[in-house]
């Protein structure tokens, strides 16, 4: 942790970023992440199972998310599943990625020709 620097993880792959977003508010299991990502994108993004679980494996190894016990309560019905939650490092990296994207976005908005409706 001593040497942790969030920017060394940037840029995140789109899948990794989606996973961090999905886990930002609550811990979820794999299938739940899958549904969340697809719902959030309005069904335009299809996450393949292999892609998702590979991303989960890497994020765990990088200590950006962690496996945790199934939370008790409605909606957390399946105890056979592994639940994942974001770690403080994950939060830091997600923030760094957001900042990076915002920077890009701001830069893009300042380019008139790239604005919608521009000639």
């Amino acid at each position, binding site marked *: 942790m001593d040497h942790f620097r969030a920017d060394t993880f940037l840029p995140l792959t789109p899948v990794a970023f989606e996973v961090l977003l999905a886990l930002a508010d609550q811990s979820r*299991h*794999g*299938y739940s992440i*899958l549904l969340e990502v697809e719902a959030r994108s309005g069904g335009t993004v*299809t996450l*393949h*199972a*292999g*892609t998702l*679980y*590979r991303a*989960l*494996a890497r994020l*765990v*190894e990088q200590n950006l998310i962690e496996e945790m016990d199934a939370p008790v309560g409605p909606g957390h019905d399946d105890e*056979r*599943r*592994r639940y994942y939650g974001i770690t403080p490092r994950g939060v830091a990296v997600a923030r760094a990625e957001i900042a990076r994207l915002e920077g890009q976005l701001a830069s893009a908005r300042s380019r008139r020709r790239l604005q919608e409706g521009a000639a």
Partner: protein
Amino acid sequence: MSLGSWIANRLFGIALLAYPRAFRRHFGDEMRDDFRRRAGSGRNTPGAFAALVRDGLRERATAVARWTLWPNHQPHLYEPSGRHAMSWDSIRADVRYTLRQAVQAPLYTLLAVSALALGIGANSAIFTVVQGVLLKPLPYQHPDQLVTVWSHNTAENKPENPISPANFADLRDQARSFAALEGYFSFVSNTQIVLDGPPEIAVTSFVSPGLFELLGRTAMLGRAIQPGDGAGITVISHGYWQRRFGSDPSVVGRQVTADGAPATIVGVMPPEFVFPYMGMVGPTGFTRTMDVDAWTTMMMTGPRMVDQSGRFIRNVHYLAAVGRLQPGISVEQARAGLAAAASRLEQAYPDTNKGWTTTVTALHEQVVGEVRPALLVLTGGVALILLMACVNVANLVLARGVSRQKELAIRATLGATRGRLMQQALTESLLLALTGGLLGLLVVRWGVQALIALAPANLPRVQEVAPDGTVFLVTLCVALATGTLVGIVPALFATRADLRPALQESSRGSVGSRSRHHMRAALVVTELALAVVLSVGAGLLLRSFATVMTLDPGFRPENLLTLQMSIPYTLTTPDARRAYYAQWFERLEGIPGVVAVGGTTRIPLGSTSVTTSVQVQGQDVPTSDLPEVEFRRAMHDYFEAMGIPIRRGRNFTTEDGPTSPPTVIVNEAMARRVFGQENPIGQHIRTGPNPSGPWSTVVGVIGDIRHSGLEAPPAAEMYVNYLQNPPVAPFIALRTDGDPAAVAERVRVAAAAFDSTLAIYDIRTMQQIRSAAVAERRFLLLLIGAFGVLALVLAAVGVYGVMALVVSERTQEMGVRLALGAPPSTVLSMIVRQAATLAAVGVTVGVAVATALTPLMASQLYGVQALDPITFAGVAALLVAIATLAALVPARRAMRVDPLRALRCD
């Protein structure tokens, strides 16, 4: 569950197999569950399956990469503990440890590394030669499309006969499968060049103007000869340009006189350009050197090509041809096409072409085909040497394993896994082998230089031999393979045994010594067997060489000096030449030390030969069936100077002058061939199918001479007296009463004093020529012989090593035996008997292997069978003797064991 979903689930299960097992264990159930839940959503498409498999394979690649290329101590899915059996850290530690061990046991390290350096280096050096000679493409454009074309004289069984101009022109017209077919004189000529002083000799190849275009080579300076060029257009070689013109670029465009005619130098070829190679010239010709100085246009309309009526000559053969095949045409197709054309010519011109067809050979095969077997024998020999080096080093490693048993046991007890110990052992042997390989590169550098220096001058392409990147790569690969080979057996062995008892043993313990002993015995048996194979090969080559050296060449080669000369071009008439030669021979006879002087048009072992058909008066034989014999002119006291015996009849005398009736002398082979049982003396013969030619009388029969090589049986040949048509570039033979080399300088001085425009060159003693004639055989013998001796030494060291170990391990037992009153000699005989048993097994295995292998080198043997019993028996006896002797040293030590000390030492 519907059938469809059942199938889909199965398929999903199969697709999951693409993932590494650890991944499947961790995520498989959930992935399967997700898949089921999604069954109704329409997302489980074939594309999804493909993506699943693709991701799985990617994960596998990731896992492998993380495991092998960049392992670290981070815990991850595949190594949750973060502890890797193999990691850079552990490899670094192993390397450090190995280096420390190497410094602590310098003798062991030195022995192992130098054995491997020699083995690997020798292999790479031979490979360098094999690559340069056999593997590298010839220095022409798309050389795989190039072939040589010869006339095949089926009646005389001469498949590589030159082609006559008329046949060449006809074949060229009909060669549909060829993109181009170009010709050159099937020999190289000594051309007299006048630059600024007296005439000089330039070795010249006459080529048809399209040849360079066919080869796809251009000049380095100026231009090459090109289609449309007329007579006298000359291109010179890089070597000649440097040597004679001091690399002066203004040589391009220079006018010179070549053989009395004007010529223009239009270009200089690059240094690596060679044409023709030795294998590409025919059996006829005048000169014995092959380093071509210049190429000059050969005109198809020249005087040598057409007869008096202006038609191409069909019955004299002196062209060689090289062709470029059409793309996609195989050599076989081209061969069939030309054979068909040749049979059409056979029908059209039965007088000259009956029994003549064509031979088409891939150019690469033509150039190097003859030396391939010898080089392959060498490659095999040197590979065996490397194998022996490996066995020796494995033996060393094993021997050291004994002293390191405890260390291994401690490490194993402290938790080192078997894989970890193997890694350590392999690191050590790989490090040894890589160091050996690195030093081996030095061996390659010097070895290749030595090989080139030793190589016979007629080894084709030897000038193209040089170590390059490929050699480096091969050396690296050989080193890696060697390291693995050397390390794997002892590594497996060292880590197989249950090592714990070693900890309890005293330091002289012999735990596991039985199987270790067996292993060492097996290695020694292997070594002995390899030594048998190599020594048998060397022995067979030695016997062949001895046989060849005792062959009677048909003349006395000692005290004989030879040279070639070209008389001035101003001597155009036979009378002028006769007068010139008369004075010249008189001058040579006056040189102190010269006993007899003679000359000929083609000297034995040092030049080529030309043949003619002969007709015997009174024998009615069809033209196409006339016997072919070699044809030479004898000058002055040629037979006396050469020491060629006259068997019957008489020598040429002064009576056989230019105006007297023509006479010939034949050799015994020709007498048998042409006259059978009849007395040849007094018979009349004439050369060629020449109905109007004069008859010559046979006046003498000489002994047979081996002209084309010591190993080739003597051919039928005839001599005419030179006075009837004096040659322009004869060989001179001088019989001396002392060292012929000492006379050479006097001859040079005499020639300069006699005529400053007389060119004499190629002065060599007959012993030098004879030595060159066996150069390839000697080269092979020298190397395989060296390998054989090395193998014997290695085998002796191996036997000594294993017997010394036996003695040291059984010291106690010997002490008991001696203490109980056994005479020391029984101890000695026990050890020696054990060594002899090893030797017997090794020799038996070796003889069996050699029996299978030596027939492969049959082409390199002369006068001895590949399974020669004397050689086999001799080598077997030698090896048993060597093994026994090697065992005597430790056996004597065993005999002198002090019983008290031996018993006390535990």
